[in-house]
């Protein structure tokens, strides 16, 4: 039905409106787990970071990690929440990913409530209902059957390294109205979590996991339709595709006279469909009750404001800082580039380069395009080296094409721009050489030159092209244009 066609989704849904709320689980960047001193690290050998507390052995008691609470408060403040007294509850369920048979979470009183997040591009305010602390569960792998899926599995294997890792679950109000808005929300939330130092935000490693609640209703209707919760959304791409698919599925059901059944659905990335999860008990009864082993969290006002002062610059302020380098860019392509650069955490690179004397517009464009396309190697690029490259390009020592090539090599190797340019033979054309090339072009196209000299500016491109060709791409277009115009005068 839907194959990567978010734009056709809008047409399909004409007369309908989708309503989306997101639950984002974010792993906190602590050294140790939430309730014990086992290491919080990704990719360790299975079951090497476990102890009596995270294995739920009898007699063990949880003690909360102060730094996890601080990071949770940073998230709350960054999302404009009210940070207040909170307590922990046990969420009881029977499943081997949690050896205690309950997960410690926050139920009636969450540490952060009633906040909001502003979407930078659609300029929309999305309400945050709560952002509470809970522990992560272990990881189960299904053995036998095909491809590790539950169907046909012979048995399951459990690794408890992840059990007890501190999480904050951020629950939005059902304020999102399209797959694009949902993607923009997660992308902005991710930047906020990374900028505040609370999480590394790596969706591919499961540090950020998203569940989407999707329903549809007739345009103009105020009532909510029956919603489905979609799980297994491991990337922004999956999130957008799954929401678009699910909304269409629900509209098709209703238009064909059927009803939407409230259920949890699994996104299948390969087939591009959501399917109902097979489950023994669909209606869970978690029997929440207060966790007797933990006392309440009562962060003092002083502590909260001290934590607030430790939060770094948040994305909105980072965008403002970049915007201030230009004049009047609240929207348009420069603003889009600013959003991209801040979203990828490349703004320090641009600001640093500009502080070092580089041209803001060029620095922003190179960061938003060339650097953004090569994020895996971004760590190889220093602010200084990037600034030098931009200055070389501005000064005409490198043409735009050459600058892009040099930047690509710098990202791969970590070398300085001068070194890369020299190794590629990208030396700036000597003025005398350039003038000689221009002479050569004039002598082969005397008629065109006469017309250009008498003011036909549309021939500029022709001459620049000819000179570029003779120089084998080494000449800088802007420098050639300037030289041609000064010759004419």
């Amino acid at each position, binding site marked *: 039905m839907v194959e990567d066609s978010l734009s056709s989704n809008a047409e399909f849904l004409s007369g309908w409106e989708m309503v989306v709320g997101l639950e984002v689980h974010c792993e906190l960047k602590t050294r140790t787990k939430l309730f014990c*001193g086992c290491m919080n690290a990704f990719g360790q050998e299975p*079951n*090497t970071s476990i102890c009596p507390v995270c*294995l739920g052995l009898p007699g063990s008691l949880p003690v909360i990690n*102060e730094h*996890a609470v601080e990071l949770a408060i940073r998230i709350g403040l960054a999302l404009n929440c009210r940070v207040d007294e909170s307590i922990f509850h046990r969420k009881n369920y029977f499943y081997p990913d949690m050896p205690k048979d309950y997960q410690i979470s926050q139920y009636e009183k969450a540490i952060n409530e009633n906040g909001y997040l502003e979407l930078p591009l659609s300029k929309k305010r999305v309400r945050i209902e709560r952002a509470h602390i809970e522990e992560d569960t272990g990881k189960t792998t299904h053995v036998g059957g095909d491809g590790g899926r539950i169907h046909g599995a012979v048995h399951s294997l459990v690794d408890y390294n992840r059990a007890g890792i501190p999480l904050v679950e951020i629950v939005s109000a059902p304020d999102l109205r399209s797959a694009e808005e949902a993607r923009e929300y997660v992308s902005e939330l991710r930047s906020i979590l990374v900028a505040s130092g609370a999480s590394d935000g790596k969706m591919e490693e499961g540090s950020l996991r998203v569940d989407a609640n999707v329903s549809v209703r007739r345009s103009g209707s105020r009532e909510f339709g029956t919603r489905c919760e979609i799980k297994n959304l491991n990337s922004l791409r999956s999130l957008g595709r799954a929401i678009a698919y699910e909304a269409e599925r629900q509209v098709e059901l209703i238009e064909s006279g059927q009803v939407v059944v409230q259920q949890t659905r699994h996104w299948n990335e390969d087939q591009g469909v959501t399917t109902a999860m097979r489950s*023994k008990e669909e209606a869970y009864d978690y029997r929440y009750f207060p966790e007797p082993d933990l006392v309440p969290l009562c962060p003092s006002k002083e502590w909260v404001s001290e934590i607030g002062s430790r939060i770094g610059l948040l994305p909105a302020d980072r965008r403002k800082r970049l915007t201030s380098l230009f004049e009047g860019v609240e929207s348009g392509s420069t603003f889009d580039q600013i959003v991209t650069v801040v979203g990828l955490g490349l703004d320090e690179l641009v600001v640093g380069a500009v502080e070092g004397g580089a041209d803001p517009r060029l620095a922003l464009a190179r960061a938003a395009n060339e650097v953004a396309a090569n994020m895996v190697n971004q760590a190889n690029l220093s602010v200084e080296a990037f600034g030098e490259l931009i200055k070389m390009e501005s000064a005409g020592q490198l043409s735009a094409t050459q600058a892009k090539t040099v930047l690509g090599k710098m990202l791969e190797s970590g070398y300085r721009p001068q070194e890369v340019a020299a190794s590629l033979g990208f030396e700036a054309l000597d003025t005398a050489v350039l003038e000689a090339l221009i002479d050569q072009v004039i002598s082969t196209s005397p008629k065109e030159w006469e017309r250009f000299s008498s003011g036909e500016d549309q021939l500029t491109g022709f001459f620049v092209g000819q000179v570029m060709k003779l120089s084998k791409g080494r000449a800088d277009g802007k420098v050639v244009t300037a030289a041609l115009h000064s010759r004419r005068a």
Partner: protein
Amino acid sequence: MPESISRKEVKHVASLAKLALSDEEELMYTDQLAAILDHARDIMALDTAKFAPTAHPLELNNVFRSDVEKASLDRDEVLSQAPASQDGRFVVPRILGEAP
């Protein structure tokens, strides 16, 4: 006064807790749980408007530990206590439903 807990509810709670109860046990626990709930009902009849809700019997809050690593357990020793293990992981019976 209606019964504070029905036998059906006791069956439900037992099944959530994965307990297999005999008929006699069901009756016995229904009586015992009803006595506890009746006691709670007596307490609920008191006027507590003047008191703030208590989240914990101890007058303590903010009990923290610092974010410092401690040695984890030896994996082989832990897995030797499990009924079965494979590739460094616990083996559990085939799971019917997805995680709640």
